[in-house]
């Protein structure tokens, strides 16, 4: 868990050409997929996969930069979804502004909480994030007058959003492209950040907090910022979810959603910023392949988690990176 990032980061700060190419190809692919894939069912599944991939990316980024495993990111996902939903009910803000608020609010909550909890031992952090998230779930479950409790609430959305027809967000074909581009931009942004001074500083703190402090760095605020950022990413996923489904239930806050995100991040490997997103795709492929066995899906996913954690601690992305470096022929 404590190995240095595979690239000695000071060596090359410039963005390699392959990353730019990968970015352009990824965006183009996202626009082309709906034209190629005609099955609505497949598109629906893929859209879900991409939305959860955004959540997993948020969880994975926190793991990567701070070595902290949050078991409560569903809270940020759900709070964002409920913010949009409740705004629709009470009509406080124009929906565009509500969406921005839905992303900023969880980030602010995470930042304030983070100032306190990022200092705790990694285990206590995991336990606390779980407990806090579960508390939000219980509130939405019990407070029927606010959001209709367990039955969930339909979300009222305007017919136009950011100048686009609302249908854009609710047809799997177009929504897939929207979510995909959000995912690609998020991963790219986080990847750039992870190479920046700030990204390197947080990794240094992860490796040895005391030493970073002795060199003269403030160590709490940077970690709280990473936590806030990863919460914001989870919130983006929550916003995509609510736009796509126009319906929200307390299930969006439930710990099993956080759990799924963690499983994806671990399978994909959080050492690479893009690993969790890959993990999410594998997760959904597995789920699809499991077919009749989906009744036992929890056991399958639990067993997969155990096997990957023990045997492939760097996840699939770790394997891919190792393979890639081998192909380059021992240049390093």
């Amino acid at each position, binding site marked *: 868990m404590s190995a240095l990032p595979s690239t000695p980061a000071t060596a090359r700060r410039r963005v390699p050409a392959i990353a730019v190419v990968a970015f352009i190809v990824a965006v183009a692919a996202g626009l082309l997929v709906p034209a190629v894939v005609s099955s609505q069912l497949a598109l629906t599944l893929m859209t879900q996969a991409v939305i959860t991939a955004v959540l997993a990316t948020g969880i994975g980024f926190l793991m990567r930069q701070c070595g902290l495993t949050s078991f409560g990111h569903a809270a940020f996902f759900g709070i964002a979804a409920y913010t949009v939903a409740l705004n629709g009910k009470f009509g406080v803000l124009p929906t565009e502004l509500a969406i921005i608020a839905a992303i900023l609010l969880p980030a602010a909550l995470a930042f304030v909480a983070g100032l306190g909890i990022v200092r705790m031992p990694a285990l206590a952090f*995991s336990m606390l994030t779980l407990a806090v998230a579960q508390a939000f779930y219980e509130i939405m479950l019990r407070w029927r007058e606010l959001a209709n409790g367990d039955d969930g609430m339909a979300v009222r959305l305007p017919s136009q959003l950011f100048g686009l027809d609302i249908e854009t967000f609710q047809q799997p074909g177009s929504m897939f492209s929207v979510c995909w581009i959000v995912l690609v931009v998020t991963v790219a942004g986080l990847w750039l950040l992870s190479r920046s001074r700030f990204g390197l500083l947080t990794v240094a703190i992860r490796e040895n907090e005391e030493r970073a402090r002795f060199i003269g760095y403030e160590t709490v605020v940077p970690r709280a910022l990473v936590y806030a950022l990863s919460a914001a990413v989870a919130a983006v996923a929550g916003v995509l979810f609510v736009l796509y489904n126009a319906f929200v239930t307390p299930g969006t806050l439930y710990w099993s959603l956080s759990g799924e995100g963690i499983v994806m991040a671990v399978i994909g490997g959080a050492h690479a910023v893009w690993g969790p997103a890959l993990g999410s795709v594998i997760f959904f492929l597995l789920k699809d392949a499991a077919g009749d066995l989906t009744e036992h899906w929890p*056991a399958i996913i639990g067993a997969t988690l155990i096997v990957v954690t023990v045997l492939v601690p760097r996840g699939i992305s770790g394997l891919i990176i190792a393979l890639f470096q081998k192909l380059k022929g021992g240049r390093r």
Partner: protein
Amino acid sequence: MIQVINGLVYGSFLYLLAVGLVLIFGLRRVTNFAHGSLFMVGAYIAYAVAAYLGFWGGLVISVMVLAALGVLLDRFVFRPLAREDAVVTLLVTFGLLFVLEDAVRTIWGKDYLTVPPPPLLSGVIPMFGSTFPVYRLFVVAVALAVAAGLALWLRYSKVGLYVRAASVDPVTTGMQGVDTDRLSALVVAIGTGLAGLSGTIAGPLLALSPSMGAFIIIDCFVVVVTGGLSSFTGAFVAALLIGQVHNLGIVYVPELASMLPLAIMTLVLLLRPRGLAGAGR
């Protein structure tokens, strides 16, 4: 007043589970995410056995099976992963949680099951102007007995001394010639055995469902963190406190009840960053 005693009952449960987590954390410096699931498995085993051997037979078998599971858990999960980061064990036991829940759901189905209390304890007694089930008092008595037993064992027996030493510093204790692996198998077995015990006595009180473990583990985590991770006394005090707050919360402010234990925990952690029993800073 009755509500206070109900809070005591819930606190007793939390204590029986949380102390298991504390024991395991002390020796292995890891958190067993599947502890709540073991509690749930214990409850189902007791349910199944009680059909043939009655409540008390179920109690004994459940505790024994769970203790055996604990030995396996220590041997095949905690020990091989001892050199890894604690988060690795957390993730593995998290995976185990999914597997156990699914196994129980497959065997017993996902509907709620109930277990009647044993005939000996099924009555009610008058108390503070109303009546109160004897069984609930029994739960409190069991928790107190376990707390007292554990305290005496840790304080006065040689093994107890080793356990205390190891929970301060496992490495040094090992260097002094204590076989921490054997010790750990014993301690984990006691911890999971207690999960079996509390699962069994939960039967007549709560409805059995495969998700009951995941539900209770969250309050347990709050208790353990509030108490200060590796403190037995801390866990005891925190369990009673959280049990009380949880219960009164559900009665008086149901919407916000789930927030109250967290509020208490936050308060405690602000005043004492290492928990109730945290040693200095």
